[in-house]
């Protein structure tokens, strides 16, 4: 059941099909798997969402607490993204401190939210230089079937859109929580699209067995105005300049498509 590695013959077949613009699960090169998004399933969290991308499943919880600002931004709240590749999600995940894969995942998601200035952090200041609100975005991978980056970025955006900021007042320097909520101010909607290069062809949304045979990976995060706000190449292979420009064009279309699934206007 839980064979980690795709059989060699299957890998060969996947690569052959991709060379002809086809995929084993009958998707086209730039088709995503079925996406299901559910928001607000964790009542304890200020915001939460679960994204199912095919069999990949990611849950994101947002918690907001008071904390200290960074020295160079005393008037701004703090964004912290963390990713946990929990052992129940894959036979290859082990318990313990975050490894480079979970750190990279968290930092790609972080970069998209941070660079697009999605969260109005300047509204989360209680007392300049002393107390601000810290927005913790915790990515919890529940089932790994490839493309954790896009699933995590999408779930994080859905969770932030779902986040309710508690009302509060400041009494003698202490933050007192008052009843009632307002939505967390969100002004941008970054969405990530990940490409895999297999047999010198680009495909989007690689599933696990495609990831295992890909030469290289490229993630592009695009904001609501079509601006690129984060890039990350991964994997042991390379891309040519032409492939990167091609990917950028596809990313513009795909991010818009994905955004419509989360942002209902």
């Amino acid at each position, binding site marked *: 059941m839980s064979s980690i590695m795709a059989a060699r013959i299957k890998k060969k077949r996947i690569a052959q099909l991709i060379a002809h613009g086809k995929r084993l699960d009958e998707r086209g090169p730039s088709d995503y798997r079925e996406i299901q998004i559910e928001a607000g399933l964790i009542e304890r969290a200020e915001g939460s969402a679960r994204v199912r991308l095919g069999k990949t499943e990611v849950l994101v919880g947002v918690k907001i607490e008071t904390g200290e600002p960074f020295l*160079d*931004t*005393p*008037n701004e709240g703090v964004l912290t993204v963390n990713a946990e590749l929990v052992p129940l999600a894959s036979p290859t995940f082990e318990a313990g401190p*975050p490894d*480079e894969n979970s*750190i*990279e995942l*968290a*930092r790609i998601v972080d*970069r998209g939210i*941070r*660079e*697009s200035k999605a969260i109005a952090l300047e509204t989360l200041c209680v007392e300049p230089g002393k107390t601000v609100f810290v927005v913790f975005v915790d990515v919890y991978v529940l089932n790994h079937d490839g493309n954790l980056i896009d699933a995590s970025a999408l779930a994080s955006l859905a969770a932030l859109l779902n986040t309710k900021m508690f009302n509060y007042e400041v009494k003698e320097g202490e933050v007192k929580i008052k009843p009632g909520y307002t939505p967390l101010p969100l002004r941008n909607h970054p969405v990530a699209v990940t490409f895999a290069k297999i047999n010198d062809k680009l495909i989007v949304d690689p599933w696990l067995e495609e990831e295992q045979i890909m030469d*290289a990976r*490229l993630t592009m995060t*695009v*904001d609501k105005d*079509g*601006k*690129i*706000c*984060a*890039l*990350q*190449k*991964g*994997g*042991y*292979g*390379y*891309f*040519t*300049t032409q492939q*990167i*420009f091609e990917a*950028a064009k596809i990313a*513009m279309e795909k991010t818009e498509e994905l955004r419509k699934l989360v942002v209902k206007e």
Partner: protein
Amino acid sequence: MSQKKQEKLIDENGVRLDGRKVNELRGLKIEVGILGNADGSAYIEQGKNKILAAVYGPREVHPKHLALPDRALLRCRYHMAPFSVQERKSPAPSRREMELSKVIREALEPSVFTEYYPRTSIDLFIEVLQADGGTRCAGITVASLALADAGIPMRDLVAACAAGKIEGQIVLDLTDVEDKAGEADMPLAYMPNANAITLLQMDGMLPGEEFESMVNLAVEGCKQVYQLQKEALKAKYMASKEAVKEEATEE
């Protein structure tokens, strides 16, 4: 934030704070083969960046279970010295350093014939002694030379350089100040012989239509770095050739 609006990063003549033009690299100084114990080593100064790289291997893998049956295990550690930045950096590896170690490894691995040395490890250490923006790129540039100096068979040298956007203009090779104040920073690593981009990252905000020109500028920067890499590598061999000659005449 506390400071008033800083002076402009690019003046009306298109000259940057350190006197460079928008498409100009910082001054580079590269030396190859400078550490005694390492199998290969190199040192780079790029502006105020000062970075050392050393390679050990191919050698036996420790711990043994990490050995790969069909190729060498390439490992990379990017690390910043506590005194390399304004505020002392804790010597423990940060999340940033762990991510950079990974992307640098993945930027160099396409260049190395790891399949020639199964069951061994090639360990690469990058120490940033002083940082002023663009250390991952300078780190890749110098690490690729250290690999070459160690005599490891490679498809090409990997050269790296960042392009970015400051005050609305696309510029090459950002300093720390430019990176922090600028709109976008895009490090890129490149193997000229294969037209292969082996590292691409970006943070910032960049309109889609400017993307291609930024990639192209970074690639041009890499090609310049590549020339300097080759010169530095040649200089090392010329120096050892001279040394051999001198020895011969002495005898």
